[in-house]
């Protein structure tokens, strides 16, 4: 541990890339900006790895490096530094963010090769990296919020990257506005914590939290619930999940990076980061758990019926995020972060694969016009199969371990219903993921002839990241195998962060390192989850490969359900009628009356009055120096008179 850790370099490198891009993007040319962006993120990844190693070199107890870049503001008793915190949790996050981010940057150089405005694309992408890393490394709520808003902004910009398309612009706005609701909650929660705790710095706040908030009290519960509202906004949980599927209007790498791997997990990270507070409020934890479970199941069901390849993945993302919240809710923060990591790997891979497919089929996204691509796109097919198996939860792929751990800890924590919901979600996940896989790569080709014409495997710039991610999603899970005495390596790595939580945890040691259940039961649980996954897969094969009419028959038999699923339970319509329209109309009314009449009236009135007054005053403005001198002297005489007053 020699010298300063220089943590600020991690977010600073992408920012530097942004500035360079702004300054001399034109000179660099298309390739240049690509290299610049990738290089910056790559360096940032290397530095993150280095910092993580430095952290690992420390003894477990004091594995937390706090580095204050500079004092941001000192206002009364509010003092905020721009300071970064590197502990095992944020280390995992920055590694995931920069690593996956780097791969996706590389991928983008290939995927956006034909995009005219590639410079702007990489500009936004790097800006996003900067904001995300700030969010993850932040040492206090305010800086975290800066990153939080930053990623929101970048997501908006990138969803609406093709701003010429009305759909894209609308989706961008939707994402932004829905997120505002969440951020509102976040802000309120932050204020509440400051009002009671008197500080926004994580370390201090967590230290004093048990003393200033009485456990389970109203204040802490409210604060954490508000924070969780922010999390639901960012991580697309019920009821604020609606923006994520639309966000698929953005370029596919963006969907992979922002709306699968990194940004949407910010909510989970935030909950894990503030687990101390959440564990002081069991009620909030319950809410988190239930919302997570509900979202997981709900989104999974919608995923069944979607025909747009990216939308299916979007809903699966929502449901996986639900799993993560579920884990956090039952106190298994380790499991949540673990799933976050593995999910980042395989979901990024899935999106990139989907992107590769779309790229190959020249922007065709409808599953019904695909099929039989396995032979034509061998690499894409292979890697995507890995990812599909991973998300379906088949051992030894990454998804299996994390999801199994979540379910186990849910079971262990005694939330039977949540556990069952999780299992059901697992079945559905396996089913719709394989539905997607089969419809895309197997069966007979349903391609349109001209799509057949220029069907081509993607360039290496896209394949290599796919490959790396595939490897990761295969072996990624081995970081946390079950049935290890004293917790698996990943758990032990994160132990310093969550150790504090374990003791204060409301319900018995709810984390996966040492499940409070006998080994036999755990074996049983593993078997069960593998079984349900296999079942889902088998049914998918039956319905979509061996005798496809099964699916059609199914559709006919429960048409209402299918229609409901296809239309996402009409949630959007519901919001449209309950929220959007009323707001729109009130706003319109206010504009018609208040703005044009009252506000403008006042403004114009002021203007008119000024005109009148000045019309009178300008008579004194003769422009003759003599007049002014006279008046001036009069004033002086008056002043003297004042002094002469006896």
């Amino acid at each position, binding site marked *: 541990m020699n010298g300063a850790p220089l943590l600020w370099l991690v977010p600073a490198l992408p920012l530097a890339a942004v500035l360079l891009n702004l300054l001399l993007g034109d000179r660099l040319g298309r390739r240049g900006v690509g290299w610049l962006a990738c290089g910056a993120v790559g360096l940032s990844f290397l530095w993150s790895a280095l910092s993580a190693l430095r952290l690992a070199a420390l003894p477990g107890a004091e594995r937390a490096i706090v580095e204050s870049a500079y004092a941001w503001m000192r206002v009364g008793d509010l003092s905020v530094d721009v300071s970064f915190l590197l502990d095992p949790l944020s280390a995992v996050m920055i590694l995931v963010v920069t690593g996956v981010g780097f791969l996706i940057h590389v991928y983008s150089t290939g995927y956006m090769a034909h995009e005219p405005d590639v410079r702007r694309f990489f500009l936004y992408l790097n800006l996003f990296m900067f904001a995300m890393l700030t969010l993850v490394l932040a040492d206090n709520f305010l800086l975290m919020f800066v990153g939080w808003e930053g990623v929101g902004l970048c997501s908006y910009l990138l969803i609406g990257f093709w701003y010429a398309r009305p759909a894209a612009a609308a989706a961008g706005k939707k994402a932004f506005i829905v997120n505002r609701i969440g951020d509102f909650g976040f802000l309120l929660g932050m204020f509440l914590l400051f009002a009671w705790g008197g500080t926004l710095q994580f370390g201090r706040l967590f230290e004093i939290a048990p003393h200033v908030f009485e456990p389970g009290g109203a204040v802490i519960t409210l604060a954490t619930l508000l924070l969780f509202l922010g999390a639901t906004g960012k991580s697309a949980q019920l009821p604020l999940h609606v923006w994520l599927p639309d966000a698929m209007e953005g370029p596919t790498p963006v969907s992979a990076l922002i709306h699968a791997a990194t940004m949407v997990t910010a909510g989970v990270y935030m909950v894990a980061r503030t687990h101390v507070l959440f564990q002081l409020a069991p009620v909030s934890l319950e809410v988190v758990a239930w919302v997570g479970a509900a979202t997981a199941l709900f989104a999974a069901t919608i995923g069944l019926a979607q025909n747009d390849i990216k939308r299916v993945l979007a809903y699966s993302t929502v449901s996986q995020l639900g799993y993560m919240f579920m884990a956090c809710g039952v106190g298994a923060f380790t499991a949540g972060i673990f799933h976050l990591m593995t999910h980042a790997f395989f979901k990024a891979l899935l999106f990139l694969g989907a992107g590769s497919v779309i790229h190959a089929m020249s922007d065709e996204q409808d599953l019904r016009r695909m099929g039989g691509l396995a032979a034509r796109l061998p690499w894409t097919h292979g890697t995507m199969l890995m990812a599909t198996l991973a998300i379906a939860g088949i051992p030894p792929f990454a998804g299996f371990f994390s999801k199994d751990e979540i379910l186990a800890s849910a079971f262990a924590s005694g939330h039977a219903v949540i556990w069952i919901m999780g299992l059901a979600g697992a079945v559905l996940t396996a089913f719709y993921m394989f539905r997607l896989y089969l419809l895309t790569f197997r069966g007979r080709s349903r391609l349109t002839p001209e799509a057949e014409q220029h069907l081509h495997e993607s360039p290496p710039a896209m394949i290599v990241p796919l490959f790396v991610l595939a490897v990761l999603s295969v072996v990624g899970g081995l970081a946390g195998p079950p049935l290890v005495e004293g917790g698996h390596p990943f758990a032990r790595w994160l132990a310093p962060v969550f150790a504090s939580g374990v003791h204060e945890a409301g319900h018995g040691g709810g984390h996966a390192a040492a499940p409070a259940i006998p080994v036999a039961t755990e074996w049983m649980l593993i078997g069960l989850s593998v079984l349900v996954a296999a079942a889902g897969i088998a049914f998918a094969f039956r319905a979509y490969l061996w005798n496809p009419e099964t699916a059609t028959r199914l559709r006919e038999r429960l048409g209402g359900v299918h229609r409901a699923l296809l239309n996402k339970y009409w949630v959007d319509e519901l919001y449209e009628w309950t929220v959007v329209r009323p707001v729109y109309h009130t706003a319109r009314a206010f504009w018609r009356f208040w703005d044009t009449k009252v506000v403008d009236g006042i403004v114009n009135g002021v203007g008119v009055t000024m005109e009148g007054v*000045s019309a009178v005053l300008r008579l004194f*403005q003769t*422009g003759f120096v*003599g007049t002014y001198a*006279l008046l001036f*002297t009069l004033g002086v005489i008056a002043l003297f008179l004042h002094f002469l007053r006896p």
Partner: protein
Amino acid sequence: MIPLSWLLLLSAVLFCIGVIGVLVRRNAIVIFMSIELMLNAANLAFVAFARHLNSLDGQVFVFFVMTVAAAEVAVGLAIIVNLFRLRETVFVDEINLLKG
């Protein structure tokens, strides 16, 4: 030893003469001269008090006033010359470009 009040009275009179000059004359240059008169009235007061209080600070101030007055005169006269070149007059009551 001259009594302070005489000096101050003299300075006041001088100042008022300057004021009257500014008020009654229409020739910009003469007005400028009257302003110089006022400045000198102030200087006289400075020196008188410096003498009265036996501190040189007053004289230092006079020094500064003179320097600034020199600069002011240079700029002002340059402006008047330009004004004359443009408007063919130095009479302030024939120039009201700033009329509201």
